[in-house]
């Protein structure tokens, strides 16, 4: 049983925060090294297992932000502080923070796509002298879907942050932007293309059109980073669900530069 990677371990939930009506952030007891952009296989025995991105981590804890969408996540939604989750991992390659140091970093996310890069955004917001310029563009469906509001408020002090919603439904209190993320990419002024690194994470369609906008502006594919989401059952390169061409998203990804990302035809 020692070398059985697939047996999950019991972890205590230390804290729970509601982000939206459907998304909840769980602070879970966790010891061991983690990398931004990797994921854990989260389960409740008798219900099921699913891949969930590490949205943040620190001494003795991991933060997971989980959207209620189905069998397992419905059940997780009911968990409280003091309850337990079962975890295995971490899996995947994640983002290499060094890649973005001393660069003009642009991060664009759609919806829950913010979760896998939140820790990275935090890092460069806290250490803003480590990037030349930092632009952040966050898209959500509507004002009530905005995630990590406290963090966003903090980032706004240290970086150029644009928050946009597809539709604000004429909400008077909404003083950020309205429209798809692709409409705001022209607002980023790129001085030196060689210095730019772009990270795009969201739904398959959002990533497709956002990446296109950057390509149109001459950003090379090797400087655009995406994180793929695919159906996964094992997380360790055996079950075959996440395979695209000769690439296993769970072990080779989920983070790819677009030179590679472009070649992956499902």
């Amino acid at each position, binding site marked *: *049983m020692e*070398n*059985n*990677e*697939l*047996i999950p371990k*019991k972890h205590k939930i230390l804290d729970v925060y509601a982000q939206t009506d459907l998304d909840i952030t769980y602070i879970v007891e966790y010891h061991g090294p983690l990398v931004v952009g990797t994921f854990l296989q989260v*389960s409740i*025995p*008798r*219900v*099921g*297992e*699913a891949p969930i991105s590490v949205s943040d981590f620190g001494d003795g804890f991991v933060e997971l932000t989980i959207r209620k*969408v*189905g069998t397992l*996540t419905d059940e997780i939604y009911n968990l409280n502080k003091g309850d337990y989750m079962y975890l295995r991992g971490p899996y995947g390659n994640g983002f290499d923070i060094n890649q973005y140091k001393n660069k003009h970093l642009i991060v664009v996310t759609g919806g829950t796509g913010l979760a896998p890069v939140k820790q990275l955004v935090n890092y460069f917001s806290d250490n803003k002298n480590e990037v030349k310029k930092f632009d952040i563009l966050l898209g959500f469906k509507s004002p009530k879907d905005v995630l990590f509001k406290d963090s966003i408020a903090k980032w706004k002090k240290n970086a150029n942050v644009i928050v946009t919603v597809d539709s604000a439904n004429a909400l008077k209190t909404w003083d950020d932007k309205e429209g798809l993320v692709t409409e705001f990419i022209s607002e980023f002024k790129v001085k030196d293309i060689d210095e730019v690194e772009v990270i795009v994470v969201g*739904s*398959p369609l959002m990533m497709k059109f956002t990446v296109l906008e950057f390509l149109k502006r001459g950003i090379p594919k090797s400087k655009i980073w995406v994180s793929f*989401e*695919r*159906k996964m*059952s*094992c997380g*360790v*390169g*055996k*079950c*075959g*669900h996440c*395979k695209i*061409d*000769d690439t*296993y998203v*769970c*072990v080779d990804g989920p983070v790819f530069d677009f030179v590679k990302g472009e070649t992956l*035809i*499902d």
Partner: protein
Amino acid sequence: MGFKLSNIEFNDIIKELSKNHKVYAPKRVESRGRFSDTDLILYKEIEAVEEIVYDKKSTYSPKEIITPITQTMFYFNEDGYKEANIDDKKIVIFIRPCDINALRRLDTIFLKNGDTEDYYYKRLREKVTIIMIECKESFENCFCVSMKSNKTEKYDLAVRISDEGVLCTSNTKEFTELLSKYKEVDFKPKFVKKNINVVNVPNITDINKEIFNHEMWDEFNARCIACGRCTTTCSTCTCFNTTDLHYDDNPNSGERRRTWASCHIDGFTTMAGGHNFRKDNASRMRFKAMHKIYDYQKRFGENMCVGCSRCDDICPQYIKFSSTINKISNVLKEGGKDGK
């Protein structure tokens, strides 16, 4: 060097092996085949050589012995986990050259890919002793020669079974000892050198983006019914789903299971929210075909398909994978451009 045993003598060997092994071989199961008048030939435990169907191809591959169709991974209750046990006995399989070559593909996925060894596969795989059944001649549809998997040296014992008895040759000390009291003869297994079904396998460096989007796949939208039988019979398909279940009498206890999955069947790529990466049967066929003769090779250095042609034998729609491979080669020869 080899040995010649009568069936009665060989049955003594099987009996001896059975003391601490489960002995599996292709066995006839009556009238459940694709057409109701054809029997199924399935891998089952045997006690005597006469039960082995040596002159026909088995309908299903032996893979289910080491990757069961459904397998309990572990049980759980309020207190924790208990790993699902397996039989203490070791395993002997009577297996053909193409299927021995297929085993290497299973090993690659389960033991090498992704840097971790699959615990459940390994614990069964380690138990396996291989007795190769010589193929006297190619069966209908087989294209093992085209896939370069007609030959192998990876066996513990090789046998030529006939109604008159069994000729065998051993690659291990254990089998040589076990056989030493029988009549020595000259025997070396032969391998099939030619199949009627000759398949033109494309060179992977010729595969281009155009072939992925080519109209040649469109016919499968009408023809393939996405039943997944081609993948269940396939000796090299390895994909699986993981599911949990709980017991009615105690909802807090249950088990986690793993079950074969097929890339032809709905849901294989469906994510929460309903996004499905390959909706139509044409793109699923393209995905499977490319895995078998292109991307697996790109990653691991040899093609995944071994040409056992069980997929061709079983398809209720008479879709021939071997013809599909030929078609890919033809399209590439014509420049790979879309004919539209």
